[in-house]
């Protein structure tokens, strides 16, 4: 078997994946897949950085690479590229890993009335500027903020982010879920005018409190 053009090496900040760019990208993908196949258990759940040197990485290539890595449950943590204009023979430039953004901190904003039968889902926080009507669902990997009435269902911290919160100017949901905890409002209906409220997990249960200061977020770091 010929020498592989896909090399892995351990570094200070994690597993580094280096591709020899003198061959076509599809060919590299095939070799990468062989490599991952052979050491399937080793790579399962691994986090790698991709070193691309000075080669520009096309979006199309990146997407294909992501598909292959996902198939073997390998997470791409970052891409390392050499700055332009640096000679090959010279001293190696310091390598700075570029971290992929944490999906839990991304924000999805929805500016409209979310109506019955509609579903909004995002990996990070969800902000709704409008009402969430009965029969609608909002699902977030992190927290949910509704600048309006929340009358539908809200599932925050999916699947297991217990620090997530659900807050609304008018919190009157059909059901709330935070990281596997489920709560429904009391059977006696609340009044139409209530102060803004916030739901969070406290001692394995969802508690609802008035949402009148920002301290609750700072405490959670």
């Amino acid at each position, binding site marked *: 078997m010929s020498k592989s053009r896909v090399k892995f090496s351990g570094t200070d900040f994690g597993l580094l994946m280096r591709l020899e760019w003198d061959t076509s990208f599809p060919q590299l993908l095939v070799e990468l897949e062989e490599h991952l196949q052979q050491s399937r258990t080793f790579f399962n759940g691994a986090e790698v950085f991709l070193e691309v040197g000075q080669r520009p990485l096309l979006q199309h290539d990146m997407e294909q690479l992501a598909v292959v890595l996902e198939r073997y449950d390998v997470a791409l943590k970052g891409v390392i590229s050499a700055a332009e204009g640096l000679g090959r023979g010279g001293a190696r430039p310091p390598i700075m890993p570029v971290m992929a953004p944490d999906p839990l901190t991304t924000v999805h904003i929805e500016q*409209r*009335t979310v*109506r*019955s*039968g*509609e579903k909004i889902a995002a990996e990070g926080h969800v902000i709704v500027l409008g*009402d969430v*009507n*009965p*029969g609608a669902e909002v699902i977030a990997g992190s927290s949910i903020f509704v600048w309006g009435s929340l*009358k539908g269902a809200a599932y925050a911290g999916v699947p297991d982010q217990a620090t997530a919160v659900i807050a609304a100017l008018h919190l009157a949901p059909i059901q709330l879920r935070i990281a596997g905890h489920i709560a429904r409002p009391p059977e006696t209906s609340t009044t*139409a005018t209530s102060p803004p409220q916030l739901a969070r997990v406290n001692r394995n249960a969802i508690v609802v409190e008035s949402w009148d200061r920002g301290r609750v977020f700072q405490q959670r770091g």
Partner: protein
Amino acid sequence: MAGQVITVTSGKGGVGKTTFSANVSAALAELGKKTVAVDTDVGLRNLDIVMGLENRIVFDLVDVVEGRCRLQKAVIRDKRLDTLHLIPAAQTRDKSAISPDAMEKICAELRHMFDYTIIDSPAGIERGFQNAIIGADEIIIITTPHVSAIRDADRVIGLLEAADKQKIRLVINRLEPELVRRGDMLDIPDMLDILAIDPLGIIPDDATIVTSSNRGELVSLTATSRAGQAYKNIARRITGEEVPFMSLESPRTLIQWLAALLKRNK
């Protein structure tokens, strides 16, 4: 000038789409507007019965779509008003007999033939609903003051917004002012708050609707009915006229009037 195509829909069944379509079409026709009511509820046609025109059907909407007759041939002229017309649905077929494309073409043709085309849609959000809304310039959502009807109306509004229908107005049907006053029925501000679209009219519950529907008579053509008055007001609002919303309190009986008088003098 090209006419307007208006679709009447609700999501939920039994809220009064067909009665509304028939009565508002008649009220528009009475205002002198050349109007056609189109039944798109293929397989469960009703509009012809409510309008009392069942025995005049020769061709229907599916005959037009499948090329057995020209559109003009399927238009039935009303027995009371020269300006009122009906295109019936087929009873022996189902919704798949009409495609959205065909319906869009028919709407474009009707727009040139009539001032107002009122399309009565079937319940549900499937093919029949898609057929009914595709050619519409305006949508009228009918709901009753029941939580389940409001929920379905909300769902339908969401679908219409996704289909980029800009002009959507709300009609609240079968309101019982007495129940609302006692707090036993959703009130109008609550409904408008949830659905967040402009109101076109409110129709009080009226027992005369049942008897007249069964006889193929239209309350909007009789002077005395309160629901009929509400339909007439809605028709005038559709033509662009500003008509104030009518008071929903039922007129006082002589005894109630006397009681109120005595109370005030105490």
